[in-house]
C-alpha cells in the first residue's frame, strides 16, 4: 500500500468525522462570541442525534431518500428549542452558565433515554435504513491527484459543513448582526450604550448554537452510529468545544481545528490497518485533541483568549 492509497483512506474519513464537529463548534462560536459559555453543546448534540434518528425511523417510508436531510432539519429545530432552556437560565435568570450547561447535558441524556424506553421499550432505537449516500462530487472528483482524495467517496453534508463555516465567518465579521454579537460578548455595557439590545442578541446567539449543535448531533448519529443509545454522543460535544477554543473562537479556525481533530479520530479508527500508523498506540490519537487544546490554552502555540464578557450575565445599570 503506497502513501497515496493511504491518503485516499484517511482523508475522506477525516472530513466525514469532522463534519459534526464543524457544525457544533460553529454553534459554540456564536454562543461564546456573544458572551454565553455553552458547555451544553454535548447535550444539544444528544438531542439532535435522538431527533434525527427517531425522525428517520418514523418517516423514512414517507420521504424516502430525502429522509436524512429532513431529519437534520428536524434535529436543528429540536436543538434550537432545547437551547431556549439554556438561554432563559443564563440570560434572563442569570444562572451560572457552566452549571446550566451541565444541567443541559444531564437533562438531554435523561430525557432522550426516557423517551427511547417509552417509544422502543428497550435501551436503544432500531437501526435506520435511510442514511446519507456516499458520492463523488461531479467535476471536482475528476481533478487529478487531489480529486480522488478530497472529493471522492464523501458526503454532501460534509462539504456543506465547510461552506457553512465560511458563511458563519461572513455573518460574524461582515454583517451588522455579527458586529453586535461580538460587541455583546466583549463589552456588553458599551454595546448597550450604543443601542444594541444585549438580551436579544444573546438569545439569538444561544439559539443559533442550539440549532448548530442539533445539526451536528444528527449528522453524527446518521452517518456513524445509525441508531441512538446512551453512548451515541460520547464526548463529541466537548470535542467541538475543544475545536472552538483551539480555533481561537474564530469560525474558520474552529473548522480547521475540527478537521484536525477529525484526522486524529480517523487515525485512531483506521490507523491500525495502515502502514506508518499501526505502531502508534491508539490512545495517543484518542487523547490528542484534548491534550493539544490544553497546550493551546497555556499559550505554547499562540495564546487563545476567550471573549472578555464570556460567563458574565449582563445586568442593566450595574457597573
Amino acid at each position, binding site marked *: 500500500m503506497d502513501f497515496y492509497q493511504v491518503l485516499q483512506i484517511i482523508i475522506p474519513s477525516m472530513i466525514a468525522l469532522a463534519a459534526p464537529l464543524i457544525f457544533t463548534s460553529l454553534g459554540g462560536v456564536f454562543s461564546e462570541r456573544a458572551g454565553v459559555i455553552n458547555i451544553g453543546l454535548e447535550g444539544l448534540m444528544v438531542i439532535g442525534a435522538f431527533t434525527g434518528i427517531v425522525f428517520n425511523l418514523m418517516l423514512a417510508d414517507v420521504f424516502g431518500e430525502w429522509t436524512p436531510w429532513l431529519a437534520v432539519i428536524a434535529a436543528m429545530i429540536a436543538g434550537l428549542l432545547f437551547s431556549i432552556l439554556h438561554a432563559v437560565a443564563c440570560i*434572563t435568570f442569570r444562572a451560572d452558565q457552566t452549571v446550566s450547561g*451541565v444541567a443541559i447535558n*444531564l437533562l438531554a441524556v435523561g*430525557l432522550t433515554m*426516557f423517551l427511547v424506553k417509552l417509544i422502543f421499550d428497550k435501551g436503544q432505537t432500531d437501526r435506520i435504513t435511510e442514511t446519507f449516500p456516499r458520492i463523488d462530487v461531479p467535476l471536482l472528483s475528476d481533478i487529478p491527484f487531489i480529486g480522488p482524495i478530497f472529493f471522492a467517496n464523501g458526503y454532501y453534508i460534509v462539504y456543506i459543513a465547510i461552506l457553512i463555516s465560511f458563511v458563519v465567518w461572513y455573518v460574524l465579521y461582515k454583517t451588522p448582526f455579527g458586529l453586535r454579537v461580538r460587541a455583546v460578548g466583549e463589552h456588553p455595557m458599551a454595546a448597550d450604550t450604543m443601542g444594541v439590545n444585549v438580551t436579544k442578541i444573546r438569545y439569538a446567539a444561544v439559539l443559533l448554537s442550539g440549532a448548530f449543535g442539533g445539526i451536528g448531533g444528527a449528522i453524527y448519529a446518521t452517518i456513524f452510529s445509525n441508531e441512538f443509545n446512551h453512548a451515541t454522543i*460520547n464526548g463529541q460535544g466537548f470535542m467541538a468545544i475543544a475545536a472552538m477554543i483551539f480555533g481561537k473562537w474564530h469560525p474558520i479556525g474552529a473548522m480547521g481545528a475540527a478537521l484536525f481533530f477529525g484526522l486524529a479520530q480517523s487515525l485512531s479508527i483506521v490507523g491500525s490497518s495502515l502502514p506508518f500508523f499501526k505502531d502508534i498506540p491508539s490512545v495517543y490519537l484518542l487523547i490528542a485533541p484534548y*491534550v493539544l487544546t*490544553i497546550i493551546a490554552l*497555556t499559550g505554547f502555540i499562540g495564546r487563545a483568549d476567550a471573549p472578555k464578557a464570556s460567563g458574565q450575565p449582563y445586568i442593566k445599570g450595574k457597573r
Partner: protein
Amino acid sequence: MSKHLSKLTSPLIAVILGLVVGAIIMLASGYDPIAGYGSMIGGIVGDSYYVGESVRTIIPYILAGLAVAFAFRTGLFNIGVEGQLIVGWLAAVWVGIAFDLPRIIHLPLAILAGAVAGALWAFIPGYLKAKFRVHEVIVSIMLNYTALHVTNYLIRNVLTDKLDKTERIADTASLRSPFFESITDFSRMHWGIVVAIICVIIMWFILERTKTGFELKAVGFNQHASEYAGMSVNKNIILSMVISGAFAGLAGAMEGLGTFGYAAVKGGFTGMGFDGIAVALLGANTAIGVVLAALLFGGLKAGALNMPLETGIPSEIVDIVIALIIFFVASSYFIRWIAARFKKGVK
C-alpha cells in the same frame, strides 16, 4: 423572610419543583406519579437490602460532592471530578492487586493511592490556572476525556493482557464488610461510609478551623484583597484543587475497593463526577449540606432502579429530576424573584 431561612428555602423549593415537574412528565407519559415515587421510596428504604444499596450509592456521592464543594469555596469550578475519580479508582485497584501486604497497611495504602492519584490529576488544572491563568473548567473537561482513554488503555495493555477488566483486588485491600452484608441482606454496603464521614469532618475542619481554610475561603471571596493581605493566591488555588482532587480520587477508590473490587474498561463516564456538581450546589458548598444533598441524590439514584421493576417507569426519570433540580438551584434568582412577587401579592 429572614436571610437564614431563605438560604434553606431556595434549595428546598428547587427540589420540590424538580419532583413536581418529574411527576408531570410521568403523568404526560401515561404513568401514575404516585405509584412511581412510591416504588422509588420503596427502592430506597423498602427493606434492609435496599437501605444497604442506598448507603453504598451515597458514599461516592458524598465524596464527589465534597470535591466540587471544596473547590467552589476557593472560587474554582472543578468540573474535572469525573476524571479524578476514574484515575483514583484505577490507582486504588492497582495497589490492591499489585501488593501482598497485611490488611492494616494494604487497605490504607490502596485508599491513599486513590487520593494521591486524584490529587495529582487535579494538580494539572490548578497549576495551569495559577501559572498561566487558564480557565480550570476547560482544562479539567479535557482532562476528563484524557483520563477515560488513558485508564482504558492501562487496563487493556498494562494491568491485563487485552482484557476488559482487571482481576479482583486482594482481600487485604478490600473495603467489603461481612458485618454490613449480614445486617443488610447481602447488599454491597461497605466500610467506605466511614471514610466518607471522616472526609466530611476533614472538610469542615479545614475550612472552619484552620488558617489554611481561612486563606482558601478568602481567595474565593476576593482574590485581590487576599493578595493585598499577603496571602499567596496561586498557592491557594493549587492547594484547593489538590485537596478537591483527593476527595474525588477517594470517591473512585471507594468504588474500586468497596463496591466493585476491580476496575473495568469504560465506554463512557460514570456520571458521578457530574452528579457531584449537583450535590455541591444543592448543599450550598458546606460539609453538612453536601451530606444532606448526597442523601437525596444518592437515594434518588438507588431508588430509581426499583421503578422499572414495579411500575415500568424508565429509571431515567430520576436523571431528569436531578437535572431539573440543578436548573432550579442555578436559577435561584428566578425563585427569589417569584418569592418576592408572591410576597408583594400577599400584601
